[in-house]
Every structure is written in structure tokens, then in C-alpha cells.
């Protein structure tokens, strides 16, 4: 959510989306340089990581990685549900709520809570995503009692006072207004409507001018009660804390929550592919976005699809799309493909931005690379190299800080992959055959994609 509470500075280091952007970051020096730092790989992979399953007396389960190398503790948790649970007409409710946990709780008003949070040296953040509301806290080990206690009041007794509600709502509104004439935002809006139709995934997580205006303290309290319950909770903790202490903290923070969530069921949805969208805007570049079918996280051909995607346009400088679009032709600075898995939909998406007068050429190259993958699949050598990459890169990409480890453990829980997933993962990847990758390539990439072009009208050359 927008409001990065917790004296921010270093908390901003957390959270990154690795993408191959070599040389990203020349501009404005350190401004962009710092963004580049975010895409840098990381170090502490903790290969011999021991994950303990800890269950508190009141029955709260968390996965724990005990580590005393740095005197900090990181906790991450998620409640199932998320923005899909926003009632119709109240879109943006989950997002607004996630901005209010450090704006007053228990007998502390907004000001008092934030002063206390600063004093105990902890950083707390909440974030409403489509399928869950996430919370994180990073604390100094020697002040963890004070930090966990603040987390307890925030999670159990958020006050939802009118004054901070109005302030945070006004900030969100300002963000909504700020992007109202931004062609990329408008394009994304159009894209979501087109591929998701009337499914909750099509709705803007931040809500609309109208919807957020209607949200009341009573809405927030009811939403909190329905979502913050123990049966939808997943927790991971990393750092300087032992299992016995953690059990007490789990009961302290989560033990008094209601037992059961009251969620509105959300249906699965197949994306509406096979359509062409165009958002015409006179700008020097055109951005291209394509969506193909994806695979579910628990599908038997999941890893075959992951390997195929990696070869097609994944996170290295060696993918086919990178090679054909950027290295050989200089058509774009970045081009990539991603497998996107939400709880109720999945897709393989390809994005790039290119000089407006060469947009048609770029789209043709992309389509051709996709077709070749669909027809022929990967070579034996590509598959072997990519398996090695994926096995080795897991730690660097996912376990590079305490917060990243906690985050990864929560995602493994959400995917129901098992506490031994990290040990099994390499074998799952190695077991994939070339034929399986060919089959999944054909299955996903033979479909007619949804394609969106944002920029000057295709074919109409722009004086770039």
C-alpha cells in the first residue's frame, strides 16, 4: 500500500521484481541507480536453510528459519481473501484498510502509535493484493517484545478513526486522480476489462473516486472481522528468535482473532484471449502487451511451462526474445515473458516497448519467436542450460534477505507446496523432459493471444 510507514529509508530496500535490465539506471544518477540496485541479485542464500514448523498453544502455525547472523527478526503473513473481497460498490476497501493499521490501534491514536513504532525501531507494512492481505514487520532483535506488541494491537484492534481514514482516503484519491490521464494507466484499465470481463480481477484494487468515497468506519470494521481470522492465516518468521519464544508471540499477535473467515467465494476465470486492443497516444514509443494461456501452480505441467517461459523470455540475458528483439535487432531496451499465477486465473504475458515506427516489426518478431517455440519447443541444450539456471538461481532470487525468505515461505504455504518444497524443487525441475516442454509450448502458445498496443497508431510512422 502507498503509505510506507516505518521510517522507511531502509525498508525501501525490500521488495523487488527481478528483471533483466542491463544498464538500467544511467539517468539522474542515483535516482535511477537506486532502482537498479533493486534488480541486483542478492547474497545470503542460506543453502542449508532449516525450516521449522512451529505451532502455538492456541493452534497458530508458522514456518520459522532461525538465524542469528544479523540481530533482526522479520515476520510476514497473509490473510486469504484480499481485494477480491471488496463488496461491489466499495472497491478499494481492502486497499484503504491496509493503509490504516499504523494509524491508530488499541488505546493509541495515530500519532501515539507511530511514535511508539519509531521508538521500538520496527518497520511495519500492510499490503492488499488481489488474493490476500499481506502484513510484514522487520524489527531489531533486542526490541522485538515492543515490536510484537505493537503488531498485536495493529492486527487485533485497529481503530479506524475518521480523521486518519479521511487522510489516507484523500491520498489514495490523489493517486487515482494523478493517473487518470496517464495513457499507460488507461491502457491497463482497458486491458483488465477486456481480459477479465466482470470478474473481480478486473476491478481496480485502489477503487474509484466514487467507490472509495462511500467507505465508512463500519465497512472497515466489518471487513477486518471477516478477513482477519485464523483459518485464512499463513505466517513465516526469519531471524533471531527461537521456536518457543515464537509460539508465545504467535498467540500474542494472532491467538485472539476469530477462528473462521467469512469470505465471498470467487470463481475461477479463463482469460478472454484472441482480441486486439489499441490505445492511441502520440508518444515516442509504443508498448506491446500479449497474453497467452498460462498453467495453474498445481498443474502437472507447471515446471515444464516455467522452463519453457524462461527459455522464451525469462529473467536472463540469454532468452530467445531478448536475443531476437534486443541483441540482434536493437528494437527494444527490455522485452520479457512471465508466467502469472493468481488464485483464480493464470496467463503467460509478454511485454516490450519499442520505437513507435517499428512497433509493427517488433510485434511480428515477437509473434515469430512465439510461433517457433510453439512449433518446435526448446532445443535439448537450451533445456539443459535452463534447468541448471533455474535450480541455481532460486536462492539468489528468492532468499536474499530475511524479508525475502519470509516472503518466499509464505508463498510456498499459499501454493500448498509443502515444507520440503525447496529440497524437492531441483528434482521436479530435472524430471521435466523435452517432450513435456514441447507439449506445453504447443498448448499455451498456439492459442491466439490478447494483444494490446499503446502508442501512435500502428503503421502510422511517428517522427520519433
Amino acid at each position: 500500500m502507498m503509505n510506507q510507514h516505518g521510517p522507511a529509508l531502509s525498508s525501501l530496500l525490500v521488495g523487488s521484481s527481478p528483471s533483466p535490465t542491463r544498464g538500467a539506471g544511467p539517468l539522474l544518477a542515483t535516482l535511477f541507480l537506486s532502482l537498479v540496485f533493486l534488480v541486483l541479485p542478492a547474497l545470503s542464500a542460506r543453502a542449508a536453510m532449516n525450516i521449522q514448523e512451529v505451532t502455538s498453544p492456541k493452534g497458530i502455525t508458522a514456518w520459522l528459519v532461525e538465524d542469528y547472523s544479523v540481530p533482526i527478526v522479520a515476520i510476514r503473513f497473509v490473510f486469504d481473501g484480499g481485494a477480491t473481497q471488496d463488496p461491489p460498490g466499495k472497491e478499494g476497501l481492502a486497499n484503504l484498510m491496509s493503509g490504516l493499521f499504523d494509524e491508530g490501534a488499541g488505546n493509541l491514536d495515530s500519532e501515539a502509535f507511530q511514535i511508539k513504532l519509531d521508538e521500538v525501531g520496527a518497520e511495519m507494512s500492510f499490503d492488499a493484493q488481489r488474493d490476500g492481505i499481506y502484513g510484514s514487520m522487520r524489527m531489531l532483535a533486542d526490541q522485538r517484545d515492543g515490536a510484537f506488541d505493537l503488531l498485536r494491537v495493529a492486527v487485533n484492534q485497529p481503530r479506524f478513526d475518521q480523521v486518519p481514514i479521511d487522510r489516507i482516503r484523500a491520498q489514495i484519491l490523489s493517486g487515482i486522480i494523478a493517473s487518470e490521464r496517464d495513457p499507460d494507466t488507461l491502457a491497463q484499465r482497458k486491458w483488465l476489462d477486456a481480459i477479465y470481463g466482470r470478474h473481480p480481477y478486473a476491478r481496480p484494487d485502489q477503487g474509484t473516486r466514487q467507490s472509495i468515497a462511500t467507505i465508512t468506519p463500519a465497512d472497515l470494521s466489518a471487513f477486518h472481522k471477516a478477513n482477519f481470522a485464523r483459518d485464512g492465516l499463513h505466517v513465516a518468521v526469519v531471524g533471531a528468535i527461537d521456536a518457543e519464544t515464537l509460539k508465545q508471540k504467535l498467540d500474542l499477535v494472532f491467538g485472539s482473532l476469530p477462528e473462521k473467515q467469512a469470505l465471498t467465494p470467487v470463481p475461477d476465470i479463463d482469460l478472454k484471449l484472441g482480441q486486439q486492443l489499441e490505445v492511441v497516444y502520440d508518444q515516442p514509443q509504443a508498448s506491446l502487451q500479449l497474453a497467452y494461456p498460462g498453467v495453474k501452480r498445481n498443474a502437472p505441467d507447471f515446471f515444464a511451462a516455467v522452463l519453457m517461459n524462461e527459455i522464451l523470455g525469462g529473467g536472463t540475458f540469454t532468452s530467445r526474445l531478448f536475443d531476437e528483439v534486443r541483441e540482434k535487432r536493437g528494437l527494444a531496451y527490455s522485452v520479457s515473458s512471465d508466467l502469472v499465477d493468481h488464485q483464480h486465473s493464470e496467463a503467460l504475458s509478454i511485454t516490450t516497448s519499442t520505437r513507435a515506427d517499428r512497433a509493427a516489426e517488433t510485434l511480428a518478431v515477437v509473434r515469430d519467436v512465439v510461433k517457433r517455440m510453439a512449433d518446435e519447443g526448446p532445443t535439448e541444450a537450451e533445456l539443459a542450460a535452463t534447468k541448471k539456471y533455474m535450480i541455481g538461481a532460486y536462492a539468489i532470487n528468492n532468499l536474499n534477505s530475511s524479508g525475502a525468505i519470509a516472503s518466499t515461505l509464505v508463498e510456498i504455504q499459499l501454493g500448498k507446496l509443502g515444507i520440503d518444497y525447496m529440497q524437492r524443487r531441483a528434482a521436479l525441475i530435472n524430471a521435466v523432459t523435452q517432450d513435456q516442454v514441447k507439449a506445453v509450448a504447443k498448448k499455451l502458445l498456439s492459442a491466439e493471444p490478447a494483444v494490446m498496443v499503446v502508442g501512435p497508431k500502428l503503421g502510422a510512422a511517428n517522427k520519433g
Partner: protein
Amino acid sequence: MTFQAEWLRGTLLGLALVMAAPALAGNNPDDGVVTDFLLDNGMEVVVIPDHRAPIVTHMVWYKIGSADEPPGKSGIAHFFEHLMFKATSNHAAGELDRAVAAIGGSDNAFTSYDYTAFHETVVPQALGEMMGFEADRMRNLILNDDVIKTERDVILEERRSRIDSNPQAVLDEEVDATLWQNQPYRIPVIGWMQEMEKLNRTDAMAFYNKYYTPNNAVLVVAGDVEPETVKALAEKTYGKVARGPDLPPRIRPVEPEQNTRRTVTLTDGRVSVPSFTTQWVVPSYHTAKPGEAEALDVLSEILGGGNRSRLYQELVVRQGIAATAGAFFQGTMLDDTNFTVYGAPRGDAKLADVEAAVDAEIARIAKDGVTSDELEKSKDRFVRSMIFARDKQEDMANIYGSTLATGGNVQDVQQWPDRIRKVTADQVKEVAARYLNLDHATTGYLLPQTQAGN
């Protein structure tokens, strides 16, 4: 939140890196004990052990950035960074990327005003191989016109992507060119389009031969490795590269005194909420008198470093006129740097209201100083941000690399927390009064089209 908040996030992050600190001892006896030494050919080496995981980050920092470019060749430093991934006399183009990918590692590079860095994160067993690749491309790059042409198209797309498609970036570029009238920071790192279009093989080779030498580079290795191992591997690889000619000191044109109020305005159809940034030229850690840059760091934190800052509390919370407001100071630069405040209105408030309120806070801090509570809490935040930074080793490597590439040394990084602790309330007031002169500031306005003509 908005696009603008993302931009600010980026800027604050830079600050966090500057603030992060030397590691203290962890579980392993040598964890965090930083070693530095020189190779015979003049290459500096810094080793930051961290044995939590079997991974190392290997970085080569060249003391060459866009501010060192010859006139008329803007963008050559960044363009050359891209070209470093092409073929050498020993390795085909892409071989390094494939070697890194094959072991599940990652590699990248970046360019700034004062430095250019190349890095790989890999298992420790591959460290020697990575050093081999880096030492090789330090001297053995082969460039032909085809390679130049294609990669030049890539950087032109990069410019269109990052600057030309983004009104905030277009404005920032010209605000920089206005804030800096003489110092080379006025030129964008990516370069001006018309000069980028003409960059050629001759420019690239001249740049390469002048600056890519061991005596102009700093090697930073962080991770699961011992200093002795690094030394032995470095001597076998980098140590074989001949020392280049001594480079002249990096003395660049400096800024004259600013005697005017300067404004730069962009109105754009994509903008709906107006915003502003105001900047001043201030000393960096490299150019400041002792204690002054530290005081500027503390000032930026108290004035506008986060939700407890004066600007946030006064403008966003109490007055309720701003969607966002804050300040930052970019201290890790070779030459004088910038101190920035920013804000955007919310609700019925006007941009002018927000700007006036920001100015009022600056004037108040310059006149009345800061409280001891503010001072101590801001220092605490710096100190804990360092502890948090130790959790991520790449941050440590970046801190040492950027400091050494901007005229600092290992001790400067290690003693930084103590120097921050020594900052007094008087010093904070003094730097605010001395540098944040509202009559001699440079402001950029990003405005919606409806306000054009106002």
C-alpha cells in the same frame, strides 16, 4: 500509489544506501571484517566476508561516469557499459551471460555520474571464472560497426522508454540542466538524444582505452569467501592486466554561486495532479567540510525523511494539504551535490499552498533549529537502517563500491555511524540556514494541461 511516489521511492532508496553501514561481527568470526588492499597494477580490492550462504557478489567499479565524458559525447559512459557485454578476443558475445546463467547466477551493470559498475552474483567456486571474464573485458574488447549500430539502437530505445515517454523524467532532466550551470551533472547520464545518435566506434574505443584500466578500478567482493582467496584469484586474473597510464585527477568544472531563483515548468496532458521539486547545490561527502555532509543527512531526515518528518507531519497530517511531501540529500557524489524538497497537493489545496508550506518549514528549521528529540530519533533511524542493511549483502558491496568510486575510503564507511552520532542541533540549523536559501533555489513544476497559462 502514484507514479510520483514511485519516483520518490527510488530517490529515497539511494539515501538508504548511503546511510547503510559497515557490518559488525556475525556468527562467523570474520563476518563483516572488511579487508582492503592494492594489487601491484594499482587495482583496489575490498573484501566483505559473509558466510551465511555459499554465494559471492563480485563487482568491478570503474572510476568513470557520465560527468567525465568529453564535451559533445554525452551518453558515451553508459553506451560503453552496454558495449562491455560484446565479444572480446577470448570470448564470444554473450558467453559471460551464458556462463553466469549456467550456474544459476546473475549479472548486470550500471552507470552513474561518477562511476560505472559491472557485477555478477555466483557460487564461490565460480569467483575465479568471473574474475577471468572481467579481467578479460577490461582490455580485450573487440567492437565493430555492426555491434555499435545495433546497441546504439538499444540505448536510444532505453532513452525513449525512461525519459521521453515520462513527463516527470523529461522535466527532471531539464531541472538538472538548470540547477547545474557549469558542473557536468547538468548532462543526463543517458545522454542527449542528438549526441547519442552520433556516438561511434572511435568514441567508444577512445573512452575504453583511457578509462578501463586496473589502476582506475575498484574490485569489491562480498560473500562467502576469505580475503586471502580473493587476493590469490585477483592476482592471477586482474593482476595480469598491465597498469594503464596514470589518469589526471578528476577535477571538473565547479558550480558558480547561484544568485537567482530559477524555475522550470512542464505542462503535460498526462498529468492530473501538479507537483514540484526544489533543489539546491550543497556539498557532498567528498567536497564537504568535516561534519557538514553528515549534518545535511540528518537535516534531510528531520525535514522530510519519512512519516515522522516535519514536512509529512505538518503538510500531510496536520494541515492536510499535501498528498506527499519530503526531502532528500544525495551525499555519495564526487562533486557538490543536490538537496531536494518536494510536494504535491491533495483535495482542494493548490500547489502554491503546498510549496509555501514547504518553504515555511525550511525557514522555520533554519531559524529555530531542531529539537533534541528529533535529532536523537533521526540518528537512531540511521543506525538501525544500517543494521537492517547488513541483512542484504549486495547493499554492503554497493556502499563500499560507491564510496570508493567517489573519493572515499573504507574508513569513511566504517566511521560514518560515529560521525552521524556526533552531529549537533546547531550544525543542522547551520546547514539549513546556509544552503537552503529560497531566493536562490531551482524549482521544477509538473503541471496538468488545464493549468497551462496560469
